[in-house]
């Protein structure tokens, strides 16, 4: 089809256009068709510059200046720029899809700006944690503003929902890899707010997120955001962690209460009795063995999914509809988009069916990978839940901490450091450090 089309345009380019009438009496001049230019190129670089700048400032505010207020104002700025000014479209959250499409489809070239938006926050996260989430991401900033009365999400639920971002990430990438579309962008519940407009379903989702966000801290970031999942992984390997207390932790637990995202981890309770330890170890063993099984099972299931999922691709869907209705081809009457599409199919069924078949193959591969990924995520999560990490102090979880800097000023030691509290007022650390047996 493309070939014939190219041919057609070529042949027509070969000849001059049929001349319009010459307006001999008024010698009227033909108007020029206006073509308002696309967004100027240098503005893209501005976007990148703003991103880089914000990231730098955020890191400084979190790790050096340790100021919640600074982070707050920064997030307001990025909300204004990336959110309401750029309407949420150039955005790091969707970028992984462009990257994978660029890898899988030779015809698609990824603009450098997109690569920058994909890589910069991750690099920063590898060194300084999720500074992007704290002060640069408009989605995060918006939700951060919403928090009114954050309820504490029970740990088990937190963990269960915590795997959703990874699965959504997998789906988004698999889908994008087939060149079908960008579901992560399509089902983004925040962007309609920036645009003050959008399809009905998404507006409802947006409203839901808004309301939820008043009582659950950053619901999208914690339980859906696929880029957040990537950042989480990166932050786990981060060089510098967000530290609550400048020096010794008095274990007053105030920081734990200060965190609206349940990211603060308690000191691990001393040593476990050996009689408890053995079953723990055995379970861990089984779970580790379970991981590959889960992966294989997931991949198998994914392979089965190719057919129904591929239907989400317009070409495949059209091809199937064409085959179904081939017996009764559409004729005249008022044309709906669907019937028009069918007509196109009739025009060149060979090309359509071929590309549909190819697409289905691509979906097979993608879904296979997706299934495997889901299995992996589940397995690893289960294993990680059976590992014990030794902690002596209250400290934020590297992965889960959005580096919003709320906890800093809740720490008496910090208050002493900045001179808002005379050291004499401190509870003697010894009195609390030693656990009290009842």
């Amino acid at each position, binding site marked *: 089809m493309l070939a014939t089309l190219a041919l057609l345009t070529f*042949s027509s380019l070969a*000849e001059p256009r*049929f*001349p319009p*009438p*010459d307006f001999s009496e008024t010698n009227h001049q033909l108007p020029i068709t206006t073509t308002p230019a696309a967004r100027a190129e240098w503005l893209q670089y501005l976007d990148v510059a703003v991103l880089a700048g914000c990231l730098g400032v955020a890191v400084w505010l979190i790790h050096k200046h340790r100021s919640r207020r600074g982070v707050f104002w920064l997030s307001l700025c990025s909300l204004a720029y990336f959110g309401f000014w750029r309407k949420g479209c150039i955005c790091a959250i969707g970028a992984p899809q462009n990257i994978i499409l660029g890898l899988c489809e030779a015809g698609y070239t990824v603009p450098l700006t997109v690569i920058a938006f994909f890589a910069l926050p991750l690099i920063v996260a590898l060194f300084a944690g999720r500074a992007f989430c704290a002060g640069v991401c408009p989605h995060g900033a918006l939700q951060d503003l919403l928090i*009114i*009365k954050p309820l504490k999400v029970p740990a088990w639920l937190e963990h269960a929902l915590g795997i959703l971002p990874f699965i959504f990430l997998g789906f988004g990438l698999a889908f994008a890899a087939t060149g079908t579309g960008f579901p992560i962008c399509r089902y983004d519940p925040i962007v309609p707010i920036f645009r003050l407009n959008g*399809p*009905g*379903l998404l*507006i*409802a989702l947006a*409203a*839901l997120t808004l*309301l939820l966000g*008043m*009582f659950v801290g950053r619901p999208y970031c914690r339980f859906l955001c696929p880029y957040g999942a990537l950042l989480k992984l990166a932050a786990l390997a981060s060089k510098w962690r967000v530290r609550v207390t400048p020096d010794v932790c008095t274990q007053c637990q105030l920081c734990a209460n200060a965190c609206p995202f349940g990211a603060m981890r308690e000191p691990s309770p001393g040593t476990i009795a050996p009689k408890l330890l053995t079953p723990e170890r055995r379970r861990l063993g089984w779970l580790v063995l379970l991981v590959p099984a889960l992966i294989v099972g997931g991949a198998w299931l994914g392979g089965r999914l190719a057919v129904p999922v591929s239907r989400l691709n317009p070409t495949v869907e059209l091809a199937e509809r064409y085959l179904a209705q081939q017996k009764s081809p559409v*004729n*005249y*009457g*008022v*044309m*709906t*988009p*669907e019937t028009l599409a069918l*007509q196109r199919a009739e025009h060149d069924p060979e090309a359509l069916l071929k590309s549909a078949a190819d697409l289905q193959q691509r979906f097979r591969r993608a879904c296979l990978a997706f299934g495997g990924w889901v299995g992996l995520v589940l397995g690893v999560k289960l294993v990680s839940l059976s590992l014990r990490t030794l902690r002596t102090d209250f400290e934020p979880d590297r992965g889960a901490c959005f580096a919003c800097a709320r906890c800093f000023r809740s720490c008496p030691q910090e208050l002493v450091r900045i001179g808002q509290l005379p050291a004499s007022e401190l509870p003697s650390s010894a009195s609390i450090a030693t656990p009290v047996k009842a």
Partner: protein
Amino acid sequence: MKREFQLASRRKFFSQTAGAMAILGAIALQRGQAAEKAATNPFAYDVSHLQKTDPKLITYEETARWKAPHAEAKRIAIGPEDTLYLCSGNYLTARNRSGDRGLEIALAEPSRCCAVEKDGTIYLGLRDHIEVFDAKGQRKATWDSPGKKSWITGMATTENEVYAADAGNRVILRYDKSGKLVRRIGEKDKERNIPGFIIPSPFFDVEVSRDGLLRVNNPGRHRMELYTADGDFEGSWGSASMGIKGFCGCCNPINLALLPDGRFVTCEKGLPRVKVYRTDGQFESVVAGVESFVANGKACGPSDCTAGGLDAAVDAQGRIYILDLVTGDVRVMKHRA
């Protein structure tokens, strides 16, 4: 006191939450329904009621059909002993009654129209000039271009003259057999009250009837016009209407042919249909209606209608040959007994 106040505020929050949810849910529903409606295109350009032809009006039936030998078929013409000459691609192809291929002339550029004399001499119109071939297909002459805007789309010939319809310059050119331009016919002229041709797209045809008068289609005015060989405007007939009796769209008829008894065969694009009119311009009958040219109707057009259209020619027995410019089918239509 503190705690009761707190309760109040929380209750408030939840009630408000619930309310807002309800409202927004409703909005979502609304939007959803709107999307549903969009599926049945509210912006459809509806001519479906014009795409059925009253079978009582159709007085011809298809007796044969064959494909044009090359892509991009443009025009057909009838030569001696009902040989059909077909301009398609860079070729001019002759076919006898039974559809067996005969003479074929290959050209450097697309052939657009042709007229054939009794002795088989072929006057072939290319975009901006005319070439003459003998019955064997040997090139006898190449006439120089009548003008740089010229765009020849129709030709006719008599004993002594050759007429070419130049759509680009909106004029009928009258040549003698030697290729000398004798007269420009039909250019806008107040004194001789010649209205002038309106040719929005490259569809412009000329035929000469037995009485020596020129029949020319003036698509922009939706009518057929009569001229003398000297270029006097003799009159016109036809009216714009989507209905079967008139000429549809912005610019029709696009092509014409004359039956042996002088009646008109007209071709239209947009609503592809071929009709017969009496010599006085009264609508008589339909040769083939829109439903006969499904592909044509559709293809008219992915980009535009200049790609579509039909052409007709009539042989000595009064059989009408219809060329479908989109599918390249040639149909032979016989009058129903």
